[in-house]
């Protein structure tokens, strides 16, 4: 067993290495092909010029052919549909090619934002992310492909951007954005796009943009709704002007807990690219002092007027003392009471006597122990997958449905002797602890939770149990 396990991991490593190499080679081929195309598209002009001029009359090289905007022949062809727009044209495209934009997060929002920013010809495009591509990202993080599962999102996103547009510079920042590196990374760019997924990151990125004087294109999406605005732009408000106090941590839902329809961050991410392009090319009116609210179910987009810069703002206000040093020292996780990383929380509410592992539970099932298993997940979670003979009573309705638990326990006792046990399970083992606490307070002294929930069942007992 062990040697075959060792073999498998060696083969996996080899596959990974070969895939890396393949990606590198494909990248190189692409660059060369593009170089070749540029050479070929320039060559006929040069030859023609040389033969007509015969070396004596003034040459008609690209530089003289009224190309004061500095776009190359290749760029003119590539971006021709932009250039044909009277309200965009060569000036805006030229501005865009000279601009640099940083996208923080290569997830649901960052995916479409990066694809469009790369395609549209942003001169230098930076990507920050510390995560790896997972199968449950694919439904919305459309920049990544299945071949990149397990690999850094930055690498995957950079390869995708470069394969769309090999003429721009892509910079990979394969690290988590922190107060220790944010100033250094963000100072290298003209515009920042916030495509992150948590509250502390949003405060941190906004504060850093204020300190560095960079405009911030901020988007968010959850469930079937999205929000978009531009902060710190030409005297407009910053994130803290709008939200001086952080929300309670319980109000900060994550896509990994609450779900999100894939196309919703897709739409908001596209709009973020649009706002960033408008700022970079100096075209139109960026969404500053306004917020766009998107509701997918009613197909409604509305733009509302929000407050301007607050003179009392702690970070951008008139008497602020917030500076680079204060930024570096600020504890954003403490401020928002929630972690910068996306790893799910692990509560420890109960004493060890009130808990059993999934393996122990399995043994008790096999031994035929009389018991009741209450699954406290929401009903729509329960419908995805559940353990056999479990009773679904969502945590929110636990108190009201206690009689059902009592009668289920009675039923067990009649069938298999006295003292049926009561176990509680949920997805990851947090809500089950809350439920056990609640049940113990109501007199179910022997209620126990299953540590780590269905996730640990899948990891430690039944590897074929579907996880979501």
């Amino acid at each position, binding site marked *: 067993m062990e040697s075959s396990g060792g073999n498998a991991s060696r083969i996996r490593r080899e596959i990974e290495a070969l895939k890396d190499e393949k990606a590198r080679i494909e990248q190189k081929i692409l660059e060369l092909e593009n170089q070749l195309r540029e050479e070929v598209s320039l060559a006929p002009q040069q030859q023609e010029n040389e033969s007509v001029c015969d070396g004596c009359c003034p040459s008609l090289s690209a530089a003289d052919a009224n190309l004061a905007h500095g776009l190359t022949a290749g760029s003119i062809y590539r971006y021709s549909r932009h250039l044909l727009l009277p309200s965009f044209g060569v000036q805006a495209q030229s501005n865009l090619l000279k601009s640099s934009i940083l996208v923080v997060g290569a997830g649901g929002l960052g995916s479409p934002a990066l694809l469009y920013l790369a395609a549209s010809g942003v001169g230098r495009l930076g990507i920050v992310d510390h995560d790896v591509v997972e199968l449950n990202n694919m439904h919305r993080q459309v920049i990544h492909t299945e071949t990149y599962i397990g690999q850094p999102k930055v690498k995957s996103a950079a390869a995708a951007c470069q394969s769309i547009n090999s003429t721009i510079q892509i910079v990979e920042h394969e690290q988590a954005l922190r107060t220790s590196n944010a100033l250094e990374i963000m100072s290298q760019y003209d515009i920042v796009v916030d495509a992150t997924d948590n509250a502390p990151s949003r405060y941190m990125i906004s504060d850093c943009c204020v300190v560095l004087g960079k405009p911030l294109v901020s*988007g968010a999406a959850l*469930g079937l709704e999205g929000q978009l605005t531009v902060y710190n732009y030409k005297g407009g408000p910053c994130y803290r002007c709008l939200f001086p106090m952080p929300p309670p941590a319980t*109000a900060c839902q994550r*896509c990994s807990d609450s779900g999100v329809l894939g196309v919703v961050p897709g739409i908001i991410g596209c709009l973020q690219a649009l706002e960033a392009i408008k700022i970079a090319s100096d075209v139109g009116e960026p969404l500053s002092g306004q917020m766009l609210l998107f509701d997918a179910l009613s197909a409604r987009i509305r733009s509302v007027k929000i407050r301007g810069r607050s003179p009392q703002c702690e970070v951008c206000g008139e008497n602020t003392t917030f500076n680079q040093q204060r930024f570096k020292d600020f504890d954003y996780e403490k401020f928002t009471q929630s972690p910068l990383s996306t790893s799910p929380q692990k509560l420890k509410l109960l004493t060890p006597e009130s808990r059993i592992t999934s393996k122990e539970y399995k043994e008790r099932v096999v031994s035929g122990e009389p018991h009741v298993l209450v699954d406290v997940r929401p009903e729509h979670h329960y419908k995805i997958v559940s353990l056999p003979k479990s009773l679904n009573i969502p945590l929110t309705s636990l108190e009201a449905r206690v009689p059902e638990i009592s009668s289920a326990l009675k039923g067990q006792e009649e069938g298999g002797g006295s003292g049926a046990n009561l176990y509680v399970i949920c997805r990851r083992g947090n809500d089950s602890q809350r439920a056990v606490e609640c049940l113990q307070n109501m007199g179910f002294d022997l209620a126990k939770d299953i540590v780590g929930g269905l996730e640990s069942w899948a990891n430690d007992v039944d590897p074929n149990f579907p996880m979501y």
Partner: protein
Amino acid sequence: MHLTLEFGGGLELLCESVKVHNVNVDMPKGADKLTMKDLLAWVRTNLIKERPEMFIKGESVRPGVLVLVNDCDWELSGQLDTTLEEKDVVVFISTLHGG
């Protein structure tokens, strides 16, 4: 007074997942106007069915909730002192952080 109240960004979960409420709110006894302060108290009593702390903090909304009166941030119209008029649309929206 007829008002349209809308909840979004997850706040609708506090009022039985209904986003749009067409309501009729009486002015407080002896008062000649209805303010946002009055409306918040009315919403708290009549529409919020669970976890009121996710909506109200003190006498205002909790941090992270934007209030819009006729598509305009209530900061610009006087916050709690904003006077409401017939057929106004008031939106309560929780800021999102996901992506």
